């Protein structure tokens, strides 16, 4: 199971937690795994990127066109990371925008989300656009949008990781008071691609 999974998002969206959880699940499933994380300055509301490599891939960096899966918690960040994708890449993206400071200050414009999605879908057939933030709110916390997207990933059966194994991983790795909401968010994500 050699796969390169790229995670992108905005600082504070739980991108690192999502890649860590997936990494734990991959290891639990019996595969070798590498998870790369971004720490430090980039976390102060900037772009955050991490990756999970499975099945013996050793490099924690994804080159142009080499991602098998792109998981994004923010639509503009999906666009920014598109150069990692090829025509076969599965793209799982949240559709809820987070305006960067440059937009809030009126220095730059945020593109229409529908334009973003049309642009992506026209070029990448395996695109799943999910309102992960709303589903996460439904589960109890908007912060679980990352888990909704992981639910979708597991639901699409791209990886050899069962739903049960992932649920077990969430129970082991998420802080007790957030487990219930996260499990619900996972389930909603799973169903969104069913």
């Amino acid at each position, binding site marked *: 199971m050699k796969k390169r999974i790229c995670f992108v998002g905005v600082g504070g969206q739980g991108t690192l937690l999502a890649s860590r959880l997936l990494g734990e699940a991959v290891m639990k499933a019996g595969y070798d795994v590498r998870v790369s994380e971004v720490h430090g300055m980039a976390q102060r509301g900037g772009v955050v990127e991490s990756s999970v490599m499975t099945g013996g891939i050793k*490099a924690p960096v994804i080159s142009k066109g080499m991602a098998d899966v792109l998981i994004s918690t923010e639509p503009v960040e999906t666009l920014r990371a598109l150069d990692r994708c090829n025509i076969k890449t599965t793209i799982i993206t949240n559709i809820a925008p987070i305006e960067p400071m440059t937009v809030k200050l009126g220095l730059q414009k945020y593109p229409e989300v529908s334009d973003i999605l049309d642009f992506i879908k026209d070029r990448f057939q395996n695109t799943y656009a999910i309102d992960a933030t709303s589903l996460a709110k439904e589960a109890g916390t908007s912060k679980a949008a990352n888990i909704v997207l992981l639910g979708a990933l597991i639901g699409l059966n791209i990886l050899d990781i069962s739903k049960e194994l992932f649920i077990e991983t969430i129970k082991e790795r998420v802080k007790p008071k957030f487990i219930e909401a996260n499990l619900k968010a996972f389930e909603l994500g799973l169903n969104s691609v069913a």
Partner: protein
Amino acid sequence: MELISQEVGKKSLLLGNEAIVRGALEAGVEICAAYPGTPSSEIANNLFFISTKAPELLYFEFSTNEKVAMEVTAAAAAAGKRSLTCMKHVGLNVASDVLNTLSYVGVKAGMVIVTADDPFMHSSQNEQDNRYYAKMASLPMFEPTNPQEAKDMTIAAFELSERLEVPVIIRTTTRTSHVRGPVIFGPLPEKKPSKGRFQRDNKRWVPVPAVARIRHKVLLEKLEKAAMEAENTPFNTVKGSGDIGVIATGIAACYAEDAIDFLNAWDKVRLLKLGLTYPQPRRMIFEFLRKVGRVLVVEELEPFQEEIIKGIAQDAAMDVPIYGKGTKHLSRLYEIDPLEVIELIAELIGIDAPKEQIPDISNMPEIPQRPPSLCTGCPHRETYMAVKEALKECGISEEDVIFPTDIGCYTLGLLPPFNMADYLLCMGSSVGSSAGFSIATDQKIIAFIGDSTFFHSGISPLVNAVHNNHKFLLVVLDNSTTAMTGHQPNPGIELMPPGYENHTRVLIEDIVRACGVKHIKIIDPYKKDEAIKAFKEMIELDELGVIISRAPCILYKRKVIGGKK
């Protein structure tokens, strides 16, 4: 806590930095000290956490800077206690004064120095290659490729250090520090709490010229021994067969292995992976060069190995072509892109690398930039705005002011709407450079430095400014923590984290006063009117003044005292 688990054989998904901590524990480290810095911070954070939860396991301190941390740990190792210090690459510049003589006097118990380089400058002001420090100080160096190796090499580094009685360097890069991978736990040694004993011997430990001349010779003999070990270490390995040779170290070895896998070319390519990377196993490299027709050296940053390997080939009068950064096959800039390595190796073999089909995305909607920024509610925001307002009320244009800045979250004052960061070199440079600007120009100078950075490197330039009558306003942004690197305590800390209450608080205003600064004000940046008034007075004064703008980092406050704002 997972890292101190007694469960032998446990498999855990650890960061490279965490794996180093586990390795140090398994090696029985007892005394550790560090100043935080990305990408090394999680080593210190975990050691700190362990020292508060399980003080019987080890002593750890956040020292005021890397030089102090290295002195603390060097003395501990001289007194027979295994010790470790860790720092980011530029931190070793600060500690280099210690390093280059510590190698002469050496240690008694094992001592490990971790330096974390940052190719591409994810969180740094330069991308210097610290492998040159191993060469300069004549110290052995390991470079791990993954977390399991990071743990194993840490243990090996302690053992080598103790055998040779010199400190050993472990050099990581961002991609080895911040990658998670499975790590198998070994046993933790039983701890017999006891004090070490320093054996007085001024012919060993006091490098006056007559002693230093002897110790330099001793050091070079130790380096010879380390080179012999490098010939036999399990961390230097050869894999594959064929006419193409690849020599790689650190994370670059992962790129090389992946590339050969991807091209299915292990019958055409021979890979020499170096783990004990200084001193080089010259014999092993010579034998490798003899078996191949062409060689590609894959390494992050500078052509460090490449140049040494070329020297080995030259000494043996070999004409095997050796490619790498020196020949511009790879760039000395930033990080290596794995795809480049695939294409280079494919080219050497003479095949086309399989290519993915990539759609045209050139005409995508314009993407707004998303630079990191100061948090909403951050006290630094308030301070910057107060300075702006005070300048306006004083009738001084910001264009006529120089704002030297320093290393920390507040470097983000560079960005709009603040635009108040004009000059930066390194930790503490805000103070020293303000002195220079005050001599060289008639411009108004308002400098910014954080509390932790002030303790690290701000004090001696402030004494200098007092003594030499320099005129500028220094603003100490005192948020009571080392925020940027993850809220490590510093001597000025007001909100003590659990387990830290017995430390002594050092007040910045006491230091500033003791430096001889006459004009000092302490403000709360959230009290806007008072803050603006204080800045106006100090700006109009036109003498050396210090304003301490004191309010805790909001994230840190939330962490320590809970959700209340």
